[in-house]
């Protein structure tokens, strides 16, 4: 897991963090403007911050300038005007106090604005993440997305909180200093200019080198950390093959490479500090000498010399700050840009308008939407009349072909009419109760769980087809099993039903409705899934079971656990159902996690169920013991089962054998064995040998 280092707050002391090594944002202007919208929901606050900034910089410069009259008029005047001195000093104190107050007010405002801005930024990003299609997560490694929330958000926060203000105040400070110094003594300023030019030159040279070495350091660091991760995670194999010595040597090579790169990078970033500091000292020395001369030769006032000396020591600082904060700001902008990039990615397409509603049959036997709370019973699809589908009466001709009727006739069937895969209007039969009232603006049709694939083609990457011309039909309440070698496309098929991925061509219908016309949320709510990888969430065991249906009572959760045969092991856990699950269920075995996943799906109680290798890590004996639970889970439901173990699929209504993305054979167990094809091979492969 990506760890975030607690960040260093204000003050960039000598030897501070590495400079350079930032990535440049691509379109700076646009990113800045967009980032500012997060910061500046309160424009007035920003104006206030800027005013505070002006006051604090002004008081800083003004305060030190006041020294000049104080020295000239009182201290070095030869007089003894103590009261005058006291009054001037009080003035000075007043100016300083105002400055400190302004600076505090400004930081307080900025911290608030920045925190709120980043809070909103993170929330928008996370909300977007939830809306992205699965294919996006396939293409982007978790670590990469994770760093949007950690590194990038951190950088943006630091930049908004400190760097931005620091940048502006340094610039103001620099301009102010130049003006005052010029006003104090233009000749001496020549010296300052020469030293400043030298400083800038060295900065750009050292900075360039530093950035270069920093990049090298990052590259070798990545290489080394990768090696550490790989070798530690594979440590058991290293030991099994007594590969320790080779591993150590290999690591040493990378470790040394990193050390050399890091030493160089660290040296340059550290060396900038003493170099720039002492350049300012040189300026101080030259100013002292020439100022002294001018004081003798041209009568330059002593107070002027003293403040000029102070200023000449100060003028390096804003430059130093600017170069440092510019790096921060740029890398923050690059980070923000990456975050915006995620936010701008097209979300999962969802043009579906048909929703899922709980339903009952009213006393007249007509389908009605259920309005009271409570569960159980029927579900219905609610189709708005302007959703592009039309409910039409139809008659079934010979061979099962449907013909649309002009008017509902007694005993006629109902069908949906909408463009089929080939574009021409086609009819799709509906089973179950139907309610069509002309005065209402929607149709209700009973959810039955009939799923049909018609000529479905699919590819994860365009040009590399995974599924070719798949045709599958599941009647309500049937159990359909997919078998085939690893990578044949079994999981892919189930991923298409709940629209995790979009098909290239063909049609998938659910109770006669094109799945694309159903609102995704409702489509998925109607499908329960026990997936191949059984991820659990932080929380208790009970919380994890309840994930299936958030309003399930404790009793319902326990009942589900019992039916999944998970109850017995849960009871033996230290805190039973309240045992916390940590780190994706690391404290549970794979088999136990699968049992929990089954319980989770059982609680959801969906009309259609997808079981993707749901029992692969459970040994066959235990599997037998949960068979009853599984049977209960599958009863009255359409079930899609994927399994390696053929014993799991034997009693399916239809077994679909998939090889290389195409259906090789279909039929029930007996038919397929008789057919002596691939299934026969797979099945009997277990029993033939020597």
């Amino acid at each position, binding site marked *: 897991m990506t760890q975030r280092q607690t960040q260093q707050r204000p003050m960039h*002391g*000598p030897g501070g963090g590495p400079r350079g090594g930032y990535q440049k944002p691509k379109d700076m202007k646009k990113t800045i403007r967009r980032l500012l919208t997060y910061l500046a929901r309160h424009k007035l606050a920003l104006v206030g911050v800027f005013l505070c900034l002006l006051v604090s910089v002004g008081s800083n410069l003004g*305060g030190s300038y006041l020294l000049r009259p104080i020295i000239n008029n009182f201290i070095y005047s030869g007089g003894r005007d103590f009261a005058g001195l006291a009054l001037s000093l009080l003035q000075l104190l007043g100016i300083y106090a105002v400055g400190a107050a302004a600076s505090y007010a400004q930081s307080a405002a900025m911290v608030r604005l920045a925190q709120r801005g980043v809070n909103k930024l993170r929330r928008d990003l996370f909300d977007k993440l939830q809306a992205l299609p699965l294919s996006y997560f396939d293409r982007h490694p978790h670590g990469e997305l994770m760093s949007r929330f950690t590194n990038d958000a951190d950088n943006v926060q630091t930049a908004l909180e400190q760097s931005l203000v620091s940048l502006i105040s340094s610039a103001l400070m620099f301009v102010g200093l130049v003006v005052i110094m010029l006003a104090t003594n233009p000749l001496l300023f020549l010296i300052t200019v020469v030293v400043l030019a030298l400083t800038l030159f060295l900065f750009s040279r050292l900075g360039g080198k530093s950035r270069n070495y920093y990049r090298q350091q990052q590259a070798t660091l990545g290489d080394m950390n990768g090696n550490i991760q790989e070798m530690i995670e594979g440590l058991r194999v290293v030991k099994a093959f007594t590969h320790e010595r080779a591993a150590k040597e290999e690591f040493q090579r990378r470790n040394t490479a990193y050390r050399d790169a890091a030493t160089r990078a660290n040296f340059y970033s550290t*060396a900038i500090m*003493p170099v720039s500091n*002492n350049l300012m000292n040189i300026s101080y020395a030259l100013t002292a000498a020439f100022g002294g001369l001018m004081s003798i030769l041209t009568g330059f006032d002593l107070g002027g010399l*003293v403040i000029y*000396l102070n200023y000449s020591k100060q003028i390096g600082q804003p430059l130093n700050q600017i170069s440092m904060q510019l790096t921060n700001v740029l890398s923050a902008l690059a980070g923000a840009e990456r975050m915006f990039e995620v936010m701008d990615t097209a979300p999962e397409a969802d043009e579906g308008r048909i929703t899922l509603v709980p339903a009952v049959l009213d006393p007249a036997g007509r389908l009605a939407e259920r309005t009271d709370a409570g569960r159980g019973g029927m579900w219905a699809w609610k189709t708005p009349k302007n959703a592009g589908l039309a409910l039409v009466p139809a008659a079934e001709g010979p061979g099962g072909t449907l013909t649309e009727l002009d008017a509902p006739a007694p005993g006629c069937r109902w069908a949906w009419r909408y463009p089929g895969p080939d574009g021409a209007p086609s009819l799709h039969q509906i089973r179950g109760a139907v309610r069509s009232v002309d005065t209402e603006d929607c149709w209700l049709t009973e959810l039955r769980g009939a799923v049909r694939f018609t000529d479905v083609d699919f590819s994860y990457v365009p040009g590399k087809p995974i599924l070719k011309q798949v045709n599958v039909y599941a009647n309500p309440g049937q159990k359909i099993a997919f078998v085939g070698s690893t990578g044949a496309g079994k999981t892919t098929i189930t991923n298409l039903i709940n629209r995790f991925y979009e098909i290239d061509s063909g049609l998938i219908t659910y109770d006669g409705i094109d799945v694309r016309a159903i609102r995704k949320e409702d489509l998925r709510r109607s499908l329960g899934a026990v997936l191949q990888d059984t991820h659990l969430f932080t929380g208790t065991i009970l919380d994890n079971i309840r994930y299936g249906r958030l309003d399930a009572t404790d009793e319902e959760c326990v009942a589900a656990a019992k039916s999944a045969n998970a109850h017995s092991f849960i009871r033996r856990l230290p805190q039973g159902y309240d045992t916390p699950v940590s780190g994706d269920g690391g404290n549970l075995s794979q088999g136990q996690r699968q049992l929990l996943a089954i319980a989770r799906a059982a609680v959801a109680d969906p009309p259609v169920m997808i079981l993707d290798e749901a029992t692969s890590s*459970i040994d066959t004996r235990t599997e037998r013991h949960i068979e009853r639970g599984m049977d209960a889970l599958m009863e009255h439901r359409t079930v899609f089962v994927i399994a390696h173990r053929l014993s799991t699929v034997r009693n399916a209504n239809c077994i679909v054998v998939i090889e290389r993305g195409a259906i090789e054979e279909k039929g029930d167990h007996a038919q397929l064995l008789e057919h002596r094809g691939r299934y026969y091979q797979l099945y009997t492969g277990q029993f033939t040998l020597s």
Partner: protein
Amino acid sequence: MQLLKTLASYLREYKKYALLAPLMVVLEVLCELALPLVMAKIVDVGIAGAQVPYILRMGAAMLALSLAAMAFGVLSARFSAVCSQGFGANLRQGLFDQVQEFSFADIDRFSSASLITRMTNDVNAITMMLAIGLRMLTRAPVTLVAALIVTASISPRLSLVLLAVIPVMAAAIVLLMKICSRLFEVMQKKIDNLNNTVQENLVAIRVVKAFVREGYEKTKFMRSNDELTAASLNVGMRIIAMLPIMMISLNVATVLVLWIGGRMVMNDTLLVGQLSSFISYIAQILMSVMMVAMALLQLSRAQACARRICEVLWATPDIRDCELSRELPAPRGRVEFRDVCFKYVATGTGDDVLRDVSFTVEPGQFVAIVGGTGVGKSSLVNLIPRFYDVTGGAVLLDGVDVRDYPLEELRARIGMVLQSNVLFSGTVRDNLLWGKPDATEDELIQAARDAQAYDFIMGLPDGFDTWLEQGGTNVSGGQKQRLCIARAMLRRPAVLILDDSTSAVDSTTEAKIRESFHQNLKDTTVLIIAQRISSVQYADQIIILEDDHIAGMGTHAQLLAGNEIYQEIYQSQQEGVGEA
């Protein structure tokens, strides 16, 4: 203290830099601090006496001091970089080497993830700390002390002002830091929370989508997000008090010095140049006080990292390699378990995983171990290569207790395919050669063929030279398993152990692999853990584990006739065959 000693021992060849770097900092500071003094001379002697050559001389001196300071500064940067990064590399290597000596029990105890964090983040934090420490931690106190001495020598009375301001400021900063460091911890927890939520959502995105829990997760995230913001604000609103504290202290001190010093100048007990230099020292002194406070805070944070690192360094691997103490028999592959008891110490539940397990496998036999999830099948085979030590009884290989073998010799006799199939980034060939680094091309091809991997390897874009990504993500699960089997077979070991390592291979391929064991590994003892009856039914001996003991042993026919558990397992996999 113990921590410091352990860590310091990793300085080794960089010890002299650890001394030179601070020394250079001291010299740099001294040069820099001399500047205002010389400046005061220019004002008080040069200008007051209108002595042009004196001013020039002093100017040159200041220039020389600045250049010297720069040189020392650059040198100290160099030394501290070499020292800290060198130390970091030594420490990292030390950790890596130590971890390589760990037994499986040690790995269980620390967990891979935590070991990785310790070797990356923690070492980096310590290294950074050293780099800062060598310069800043020297610079600040030296500046403080030297500047105090100089100011006191200018005017003891004026330096009383500093004595009054410094403690107040230091106390304020330390108090603030104390409060903040506690709040920082709270914030860190909130950060971890938030990261955890994001991480979970990334890993389990399919579950979230399948159950349509986007809204729920968003609310969950919003909660952690708001909590984090609140915690950050808590810290942020306090830590920004630092700057005003600093400014007010500095300004109050300056005004006081001007007031007292100004009157002294007016009374001719102080020179104006001295006053001016005094003012420039104030800034440096107060800045140093703050640096010291900040550095101390950093140090306390680094302490946690240091402790985590030392925990690893101090751990004594619980399996110690033994010296070759006796003549070892030629490898034949006879495995014997004699009243073996075993429990995991690390997990601490204290229950025996295995109790009084005894059996013998003769050379060349094919033995299968079956049993439910979590009955200790893997634990049992892990005892043979001594990944764990028995807690009672003994495991013997070719008649000698495995604890009497040097580890390398013991493990060279055993080929192991672990349940977690790990491949490393590198070519297919590199990965296979782990089994036997000096294998010939023919041996390589033979092993690949035996593991039924040859065909698919040749189907890969570059055959044996195809690059495998870390963790072998570019081959399928079944292919990975076959590569792992080939890797183990390449060793031509006396004992080959397969821990549930054909689960992702389809039955037909698995049958072929078994066939090649039969043909090509006649002399090799094979121990296999499997779920499928089809994988084990041709074994010379099948061992059934139940709970923590052996519940049956025999051939397929014998067990089928007389063992209830075996019958049950068999039945669970056989249904329907009769109908065919």
